[in-house]
């Protein structure tokens, strides 16, 4: 069957502002949206730019806006949409567009780096593994599903309203290290997160949870950090 893709185009070398271009291609109901974009690139317009790599929802490269919703292009199939075979493809919101569907993710990773995203343990490790209760592993498990594709942060209304706000993805990673019983820097981490640009930037609007393709309860994880901070004072 035929489908029409209306695709956001912007090439900084030639365009003053973005435009939309229509491509009509032959698709199968089981095609991923990513397959369709590749088909457009290979058969119609090789200059169309988008990121992609693993093509099965693990690497987190191909986040974009599909019919107004933030999605992973490789994790959505034609059959998942009831839009009469019409698709509007746009870049992620929030970030500067580099070209077409490619955005500048640096501000996202800058926030990620700022939360000290690594295990800190000031005690000498034992000869074998540090013990960790299975329950604690289960506590952090939801945060381990994160593939850093930035949908939650791009979709979060508060992130858009407040430049300095860490945003849900960085807070989720902070949650992963705050909760891990093997980390010994919890107090300092909570100090750092206890600010208007930290957890209190979150107003519990649930967008992050709603948009996450991995089913991570992001809002609830941020809420757990808030409770830990409240419990301290």
């Amino acid at each position, binding site marked *: 069957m035929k489908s029409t893709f209306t695709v956001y185009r912007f090439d900084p*070398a030639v365009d003053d502002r973005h435009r939309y271009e229509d491509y009509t291609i032959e698709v199968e109901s089981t095609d991923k949206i990513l397959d369709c974009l590749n088909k457009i690139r290979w058969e119609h317009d090789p200059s169309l730019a988008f990121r992609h790599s693993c093509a099965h929802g*693990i690497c987190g490269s191909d986040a974009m806006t599909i019919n107004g919703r933030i999605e992973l292009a490789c994790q959505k199939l034609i059959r998942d949409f009831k839009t009469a075979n019409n698709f509007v493809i746009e870049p992620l919101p929030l970030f500067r567009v580099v070209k077409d569907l490619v955005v500048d993710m640096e501000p996202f990773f800058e926030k990620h780096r700022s939360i000290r995203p690594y295990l800190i343990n000031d005690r000498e490790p034992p000869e074998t593994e540090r013990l960790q209760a*299975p329950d604690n592993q289960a506590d952090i498990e939801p945060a381990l599903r994160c593939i850093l594709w930035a949908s939650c942060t791009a979709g979060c209304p508060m992130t858009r309203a407040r430049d300095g706000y860490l945003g849900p993805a960085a807070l989720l990673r902070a949650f992963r290290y705050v909760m891990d019983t093997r980390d010994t820097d919890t107090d300092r981490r909570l100090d750092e997160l206890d600010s208007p640009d930290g957890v209190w930037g979150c107003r519990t609007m649930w967008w992050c949870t709603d948009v996450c393709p991995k089913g991570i309860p992001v809002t609830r994880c941020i809420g757990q950090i808030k409770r830990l901070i409240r419990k301290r004072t």
Partner: protein
Amino acid sequence: MKHEFDVVIVGAGLAGLRAAVELGRSLRVAVISKVFATRSHSGAAQGGIAAPIGNEEEDRWEWLMFDTVKGSDYLGDQDAIEILARDAARTLYELEHMGVPFNRSPDGKIAQRAFGGHTREFGTAAIKRACYAATRTGRVILDTLWEKSLQAGITFFDEFQMLSLMIHDGQCGGLIAYELTTGELHRFHSRAVLLATGGAGKIFKTTSNAFASTGDGMAIAFRAGAALEDMEFIQFHPTGIYKLGILISEAARGEGGMLRNRDGERFMERYAPVIKDLAPRDIVSRCILEEVRASRGIDGRDYVHLDLTHLGRTVIETRLSDITDFARTYAGVDPVTTPIPVQPTCHYMMGGIATDTDTRVVIDSDSTPLAGLYAAGECACVSVHGANRLGCNSLLDTLVFGRRAGKVMRAAVQAGGGAAVSEAAAADRVREIEDQIAALKGGAGGERTAPIRAALQQLMMEQVSVFRREEGLSGALAAIGELKARYERVSIQDPGRCFNRDLLDALELGYMLDLAEVIARGAHRREESRGAHYRQDFPDRDDKNWLAHTMVRRNDDGSLSVFPKPVTIDRFQPQERKY
């Protein structure tokens, strides 16, 4: 633009990042990667990492070594495999100390599960040796190492494509890379270069590999004079989702999943009576296709069922969570109630850039090094996997030899090794690349990348995959020659400098064509069946004539030199391989 570092690492998967973490702040280290670091394909590794830490049952490194040697169909070098097996437990604890969130057993220790080809007491029964984090083991190790690299102050150049090594007087002094967002060429001058660029699964039509897995590092090293080793050994993972090739981890069978044919028969019982569905991948892939050839595929078609329905919802949704999502999203089946349709999918290259056990790239059978150049992980052949890799051994390989590369490069740099490439030589190399890019952009040949690539992938799938024979392979070699001739006439359509994927596609196709030729040559020459290389016209292993590595080098005129290299056998003598 010109950059100077002590060490440049190409590739931000597990091997590259483990080396980077090892070097830390002791030297000036850069990591360049064609995709953003956390998009590297190591992140797709699902099932686990092998380590004889014995948390679930008694285990010993010698048993892991034996399993790896036997799994390799005796083609793996036993000195390298001994290093791998002896270092496995330390590697695992080190990962845990870095913060990798492994699944835990009730007593708080790292949990372990069974995996294909891993046994106790030299093959007596399956053993629980795989340490895991649900079915996203590679992903959490990748995240941890990336974050440790940030902590260590490593400089990342993300979305930089290596185009060429700078080699002068037999010494590697850096490389030239293309910045994807600007189209600018960058010169990286360094005293050591580590290639950790991963595999090349995209040469085949059905693959679990990422779009980025086009073998760039192998091909660039090959063009620069390195030898490629054992390239004909390509692993087809038994359980890719039907038609899509998306991986369903061996962990599904490690947790008790079974393969069934159209009659509902658990057919692996017939082929591997002792460990059944947990036989190594080369064997299981062949058995699936044997069932298909005997018209016992599902509905008579070219796939079988992976049945998890007896495992129960809890096991499926907690220990196999990601693959459950894959089955639901892509195959439209819920594994809790319905078997998953699967068929073999191209997964891993056992071969690669020939190295010694200290990750130094070598150019011949006497292990003469190409000074300043190192390789580790899937792009390298050290060789620990021989003719067939066991599941859970690839992550171990990347971490053991990635760390080793870091140590060896630091020692070399601190000893004053590594000569600088002269400005003039570097400038010449940059000009050559500019000319090459200009030729692709201005070419009037009229050929396009996509159809040539599709023809190559189809050809390799049909003639050079699980079952091979003389006619098919000689035909494939001729066809690859024709595709290479067409490739010479490729002209790209996108003239731009910013995110020009059209240009990268064309360059990647060049790498894939070079590697495809080496793979087919090796497969054509090797008149025996061993591990993942199965010749229908030579169905038996032939140790008398073929217990040797295949080495391939490119001559100045573009022709190939193919020659053997002896296998190191110092502990386990070859035996018949039964499971």
